[in-house]
Structures are given as structure tokens and as C-alpha cells.
């Protein structure tokens, strides 16, 4: 269980982690600047198990992988959104933050207690369950390997 951090449409990677922090690579340090200036309570209060719940086109903009790393450093394991920008989607999977598509995110309020059941593909908020769309099969192979680094290691050892 964790709390939902609710965001709107078109949350860009400059908002997730501003350009001036891109010389940092440590997820925890990046997390201390996540959403700096646009949502300052996030870095202060987000904790393990919390979930980002957003509208359309989450993660649009720059290819900076610092964005999913900053979320990972804040303890975020899942981002549930109506849709994702393409590069962020891949970066999130590669770095071990799961982007999950759910058309019903409008029904989940900021601060709600939420729980993601990946196996049965739903997000629970209050007493309601909202279905999650499956991750494409070829991306799931990377997820199951434990991310692209592990996938590459498996390949490298073949």
C-alpha cells in the first residue's frame, strides 16, 4: 500500500527533474530534486510503495533517463497513467520503474491509499479496482529479466 501522487496531463521530464540537475546520476540524490519547483512536497514526503497516478502523455519531452531514476530514488515502483510518452516508457522499463496504462486514473484522488496488483493487473483505490493494460510482450521479457542491464548480461554470457 502507498499513497497516490496525482498529476495531470503532459507531465514533462523537465518537471520531473529540471535540466540543472542532470550532472547527478545517483537515484537518491536525483530524488531530492524530483518535481522541484512544480511540486515541492513530493521530494519531501514520497516514500517506498507510493504510486504516481497521472493523465495523458506522462514523461513527454527529453530522453533524460534521470527522470525515471529520480522517481525510483523516491521509492516509486509504479507509474499509472492514461498514456505515456514513448521514450519515458522505455526508459522506465529499462530502469525498473513500471509504467502501467490505466484509462481510469481520473477516478483516483491525490493522496488516496492505493495498491497495485501486477499479477492480476489492477490498481486498487479505496474499495474500487481499476484494470491495467498489459505491458507489451517484448517489453515484458525485459521486465522479467529484471531490466535491460540484466537482459544484456544474459545475452552477453550466451
Amino acid at each position: 500500500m502507498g499513497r497516490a501522487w496525482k498529476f495531470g496531463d503532459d507531465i514533462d521530464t523537465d518537471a520531473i527533474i529540471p535540466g540543472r540537475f542532470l550532472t547527478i546520476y545517483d537515484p537518491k540524490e536525483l530524488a531530492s530534486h524530483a518535481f522541484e519547483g512544480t511540486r515541492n512536497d513530493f521530494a519531501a514526503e514520497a516514500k517506498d510503495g507510493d504510486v504516481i497516478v497521472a493523465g495523458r502523455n506522462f514523461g513527454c519531452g527529453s530522453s533524460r533517463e534521470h527522470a525515471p531514476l529520480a522517481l525510483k530514488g523516491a521509492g516509486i515502483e509504479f507509474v499509472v497513467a492514461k498514456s505515456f510518452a514513448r521514450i519515458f516508457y522505455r526508459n522506465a522499463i529499462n530502469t525498473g520503474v513500471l509504467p502501467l496504462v490505466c484509462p481510469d486514473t481520473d477516478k483516483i484522488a491525490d493522496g488516496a491509499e492505493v495498491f497495485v496488483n501486477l499479477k492480476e493487473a489492477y490498481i486498487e483505490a479505496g474499495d474500487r479496482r481499476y484494470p491495467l493494460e498489459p505491458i507489451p510482450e517484448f517489453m515484458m521479457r525485459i521486465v522479467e529479466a529484471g531490466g535491460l542491464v540484466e537482459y544484456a548480461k544474459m545475452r552477453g554470457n550466451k
Partner: protein
Amino acid sequence: MGLTITEKIFSAHCKKECRAGDVVMAPVDGAMIHDITGPLAINVMKEMGGGSVFDPKKVIMLFDHQIPADSISAAENHVMMRTFAREQGIHNYDIKEGVCHQVVPEKGRVKPGDIVVGSDSHTCAYGALGAFSTGIGSTDMAYVLKFGELYFRVPETIRINANGKFQDRVGPKDLILTLAGDIGADGATYRALEFCGNAFSDMDIPGRMTCANMAIEMGAKAGIVPPDEKTWEYLRGRTDCTPFSLASDEEAKFFEKRNYDVSKINPKIAVPHNVDNVVDVTEVAGKPVDQVFIGSCTNGRYEDFAEAAEVLGENVFSEDVRVIMVPASKAEYMKVLKAGLIEKFVEAGALVEAPCCGPCMGGAFGLLAPGEVSLSTSNRNFRGRQGSTESFVFLSSPATAAASAITGVITDPREV
């Protein structure tokens, strides 16, 4: 059934027929890394087991975002990348050549039909030369550096058919802003854009670069202009490739087709804080600006500065505006210099900086304070992009930027 350009490029690389929707492992012809996302890619490659890069001749390295080093941590990243380049035998352009998306085509590192990836979202710019090029993250880049290939989902294509002649002082940037406004920030997600029609065949390569560059602002994976005589002319002397024909089959399956008459397009501006918030310049005319930036991979070429100079004429820039101009590469800088434009701009009150990304991403210099307004020829106006999250970034053509820099307020370039 016919194939789109994108399907043809993937089919040629995978040596089998590839259709939109297929997931394929495709070899790449080039992989570009820069000072912001490169260090992370190099670190992740080491985590993957390290070893040699797939082909040092196909790896393009340069520094452009934070140059000359604007902090000790940036300087350390540069050192780390230089060391990697030396160890791996990669040619490093370092801080000397300019912005990645200008340098890669300029140095002949991309040609029509190639698949090129870069750890920068605006890598789609090389579609201006008929390549399939796309931005990827650092972990995907680490995989590419090690194995020379990457998973792709072959995208469906949205064909943009633009015809007609632009009005005076209206051009490619106004067209691509129009498209961003119509298609929206996620309207082309997972798709490729294909730019056709006589507006594109009449357009010079710099104009095509402006358009292809901003495909990502609609979520697109690529933005491709079919190669033609102008493309081959640009590549002559830069690469040893010989002309060949590469175009979508007329009976190819397109996701969508959109038609535009460019003669009807007025000067456009994207207003804060999204690239698809596009209106006619006249709708926000009169708004005071604190800073004008002409440059970036979108509009930092000689032609962009010539356009600004033409609008400037015998005027000077407003006392109330900081005008920052940054040619996108050493070669473009030299063209602007030799044409006498730097002298003209400096005398008119501008700061002309050495080639780099400049204020575009709010890193190296030219940051905005709370409440300040910037008019920029770059490609993004997200909240906080160029400094304070309480500042405001507008995006326009070089002509509109120059006109506004003269008057100190947002101005239609046809009115100066």
C-alpha cells in the same frame, strides 16, 4: 501492398519485410552520445559487463549542453567521457564543433536510409536527410553501444502533405508549430511523421532540419523528409554515398494523411507551458519580453541568423531585452561571421556566444528569474525549462524573435 519509407528502412536493415507494428531487433548505423546523457550510458554499459563498443567508427561523441564546463560536476563528466573515447578509439568532437543535431549531419555521420539513434530526444532531426533517427534513453544507448542493435516497434506513419508558398517572413518554424498545435503533444506518439509536398521539396535542408527536429514535440518517433536532389547536394563532399531512390509507395498504408496549404499560415508562437499551445503571433502581440534567444538545434543555422538580420535591417535591439544568439556549430558560426552578421548583431546590442545548446534547456547560462519572459527559437517551453518554474517561455521563428527583440514586445515580423 506497398511500404512506407520507415517500413523500407527497417526491412533493409532486418533483411526481411517489416511492417508497422512489428517488433524487430535492428542494427544501427550510428549512435550519438553527448555530455548530459552520455556518462549515464557509459556507466550502464559497464554494468552490462563493459567490453568494447560495437564499432567505434559508428559512435559519435560530443559535448554541447554544458560547455565550456559550467560546474565541476560537468567538468568531471567531460573528463570521464574523454577517457572512454580514448580507451574505445571513438572520435570525440569534444566542445569544439557545436550542437549534436547540427554536427552529426554536417560531418556526414548520417545518410538517407540509415537508422541512427541518439541519447537525446531531438535525434529525430536527421529525418531531414531521409534517415530513420530517434531519441533513446541512456540504458537503451548502453545496449546499443555494446551490441550495435536495438529493439524497435516499427511505427505507423502519419503523412503530412504540405503545398504552396510561404508568405514573406513566414517559414518552416511556423509550419512545424502549426502542426504541433493541430496534432498535439501526444498526437503522433509511437508514429513516424513523413513530410511531403512541394512546401518540403522547395524547402532547403536547414528548414527541413527545423521541422524534423520537432517531430518529438508531437510524440513522434521520427520525422522523415524523403531524400531528393537537395539532400544529395547537401551530402556531396560530406559522405561518399551515391544517390538512390527512397520514398513511400503510393499504395503504402498510412495511419493518417494531413494536408496543409502553407500560404495560409501566419507567424506562429507557442505560448507557455506546452509546445502545442500554438496561436498566431498577433494574438499575443504587445507582450513584453525580457530575453530573446536565437539559436539551438532547431533554429541555429546560418539561414536563421540571415533571417534575423534581414528583419533587423538598420534597427537596433531594444534596451529592455537581453538578446542572446548562439550559432549551432562552428561551421555555422563561421558562415555567420564571414557574412558580417556577428558584427551587425553585436553592434545592435546582442550577445553572440560560441556554439552550444545555450539557454535552451536552462543549464549552462541565460537562465530566467521568476516572472521573466523569454522568446526563444528553440523547441520546448515547458514550465521551468529555461530557469525558474515561475518564468515563461514562448517559442517562435527567428524572424518573430528578431522583430520582438527590436520592439521589446512580441511582434509580428511582417510589421517591422
